[in-house]
């Protein structure tokens, strides 16, 4: 109670030394998004002010995440425990290069989506909560990336899931309910598995703090419970990340919400699953990963190939993009299957690339729909004449998702292939290259049909057909649509041309994951 005056030595249980202000960068994104979400709910009737509140809050989060990444790169892993209670009892927020990089990328993607949504989300849908849900989604995603406690990770998963349910049914259409049910059921099963596995893990090692788990789990090396837990976690997070064969929910649900919503889903949600896999498989249970490596390899190759073939088979560009998300997930999983430092940094690089490229591609689909009035590759055409700038952006984005140089996807795949060859996993390398080839064909088809061909599928070569009724003209496209597309494309090009920065960050992140001494030292540094 109030200031008990008796002399109790608090330093045994609590942090007593002053905490530098910079450590608050760990919780700043969460506090900002929560407060911003609350503010947009209170002002829900002022639909004109909503985008501006959201955009300024997300910009602040972006700045804070830049500062956090900078802090992590110059001072190593940063930890803050809630309520001053020393770990493992206080909930720890711990940012390493992996978490900070992904949190930063997530805020970039969310900012682009918030700007893009200014024109594409109708005022009445804003009133139904687009911006509050978007802010809470960012809150959940950033929380997942920055927390150092596995049960807390579960809580952030719930935050982002509930926000994503809200975003998914925005618009109240029948197909949206259908998509949301598939999405919700599968994700709830995955979350339940995650919770069950966490309960079992707590029963086994008696702690929920990730750094503490990483230390204590070594006492159980190669025993049945640890391997069983690793498998449970792999299934739970694999489902969230949309790994084969538990990925059918993704193409079944991603084409139903508003496209801006899908853009943020495709950018962030599956990557949270990959992130959680990295944390659990590499940091917490490396033995479990070694034991599962071949299985993860097979799953990764199957995911990449189903994604690439799925993308080839579709004629609806929204569905093609959904399969491209899956192909990317396969590539990220392949890094976890290989498990050496090069491959893990490839996975981290690819996650970052994938957040940017998938958000950009879905925004591109929304733009193409606005220009042509259709999603079907049979109907679409003639966009090159109507928007040369759009055609250029589309070419860059589509080649980047296939992993062609000089764009960001190339370096990620290069690291993944190099890692796989180094570890003598030729099949994984082959899978990455084969899916890259198939993806190139799939995206090439989109560009040729939508931009090069003069009109719909019956158009004769060299003829420019009339645009479909109801489609917009390039001059009608507002700046709020161009700006996010151009910014994301520019980022992808810049990272592709100057990859050293991101490469060294992901290498640093991979090093901390594989050898967790720095991570553990950061959490328990005060205690020892």
């Amino acid at each position, binding site marked *: 109670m109030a200031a008990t005056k008796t002399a109790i030595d608090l330093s045994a249980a609590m942090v007593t030394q002053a*905490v530098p202000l910079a450590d608050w960068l760990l919780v700043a994104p969460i506090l900002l998004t929560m407060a911003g979400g609350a503010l947009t709910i209170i002002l829900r009737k002022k639909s004109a002010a909503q985008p501006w509140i959201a955009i300024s809050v997300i910009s602040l989060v972006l700045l804070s995440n830049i500062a956090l990444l900078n802090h992590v790169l110059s001072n190593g892993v940063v930890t803050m425990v809630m309520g001053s209670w020393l770990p493992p009892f206080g909930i720890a927020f711990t940012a390493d290069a992996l978490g900070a990089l992904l949190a930063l990328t997530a805020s970039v993607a969310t900012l682009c989506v918030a700007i893009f949504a200014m024109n594409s989300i109708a005022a009445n849908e804003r009133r139904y909560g687009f911006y509050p849900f978007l802010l809470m989604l960012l809150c959940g995603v950033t929380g997942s990336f920055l927390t150092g406690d596995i049960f807390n990770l579960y809580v952030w998963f719930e935050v982002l899931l509930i926000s994503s349910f809200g975003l998914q049914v925005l618009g109240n259409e029948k197909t949206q309910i259908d998509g949301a049910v598939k999405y919700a059921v599968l994700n709830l099963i995955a979350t339940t598995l995650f919770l069950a596995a966490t309960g079992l893990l707590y029963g086994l090692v008696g702690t929920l703090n990730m750094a503490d788990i990483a230390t204590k789990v070594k006492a159980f090396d190669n025993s049945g419970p640890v391997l069983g837990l690793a498998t449970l976690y792999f299934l739970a997070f694999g489902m969230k990340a949309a790994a084969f064969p538990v990925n059918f929910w993704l193409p079944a649900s991603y084409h139903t919400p508003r496209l801006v919503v899908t853009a943020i889903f495709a950018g962030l949600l599956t990557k949270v699953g990959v992130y959680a896999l990295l944390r659990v498989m590499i940091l917490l249970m490396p033995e479990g990963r070694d034991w599962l490596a071949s299985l993860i390899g097979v799953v990764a190759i199957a995911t990449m190939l189903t994604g690439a073939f799925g993308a080839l088979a579709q004629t609806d560009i929204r569905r093609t993009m959904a399969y491209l998300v899956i192909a990317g997930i396969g590539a990220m999983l392949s890094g976890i299957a290989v498990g050496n430092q090069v491959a893990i940094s490839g996975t981290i690089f690819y996650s970052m690339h994938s957040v940017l490229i998938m958000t950009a591609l879905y925004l591109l689909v929304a733009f193409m729909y606005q220009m042509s009035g259709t999603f079907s590759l049979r109907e679409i055409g003639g966009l090159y004449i109507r928007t040369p700038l759009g055609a250029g952006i589309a070419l860059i984005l589509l080649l980047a998702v296939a992993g062609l140089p000089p764009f960001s996807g190339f370096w990620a795949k290069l690291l993944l292939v190099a890692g796989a060859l180094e570890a003598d996993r030729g099949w994984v390398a082959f899978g990455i290259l084969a899916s890259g080839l198939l993806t190139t064909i799939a995206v090439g088809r989109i560009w040729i049909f939508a931009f090069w061909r003069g009109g719909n599928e019956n158009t004769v070569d060299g003829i420019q057909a009339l645009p479909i009724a109801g489609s917009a003209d390039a001059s009608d496209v507002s700046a709020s649509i161009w700006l996010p597309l151009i910014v994301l494309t520019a980022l992808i090009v810049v990272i592709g041309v100057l990859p050293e920065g991101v490469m060294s960050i992901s290498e640093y992140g991979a090093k901390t994951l594989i050898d967790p001494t720095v991570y553990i030292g950061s959490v328990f540094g005060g205690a020892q």
Partner: protein
Amino acid sequence: MNTLILRTVAPYLTALMLLFSVFVLLRGHNEPGGGFIGGLIAVSAFAIYGIACGVSAVRRAMKFHPMSIAASGLVLAVLSVLPSLFLGQPAMTSQWYAVPFLGTAIDLSTPLFFDVGVYLVVVGAISSIALSLEERAD
């Protein structure tokens, strides 16, 4: 439900339950209780009032829209995290302040404000769900 007995009793029952919810909220720091459970009790009070006297009566009685109540609770919870920022302590470190009141001291603390925030979030969110469900039933 349009029975005279329920309609007569409901306002008193609601008032009692709301009072009880505040009691549960306040005792929550050291004993079973707290913002979440207190909030649920308050929502049940509103729900009973809604069943007896109709949803519009509840909305009038609540004065603010449930969503605004939930959002202000969230703001309060976020604000209660901040004081430790200015004292160089980690987030959510509790701060205590004893207020002298009629010869005794009342302990005010940041966890109390956090809990009140949780109470408001639960009251707002769940009652907005409950009220819209009751509205459909009408």
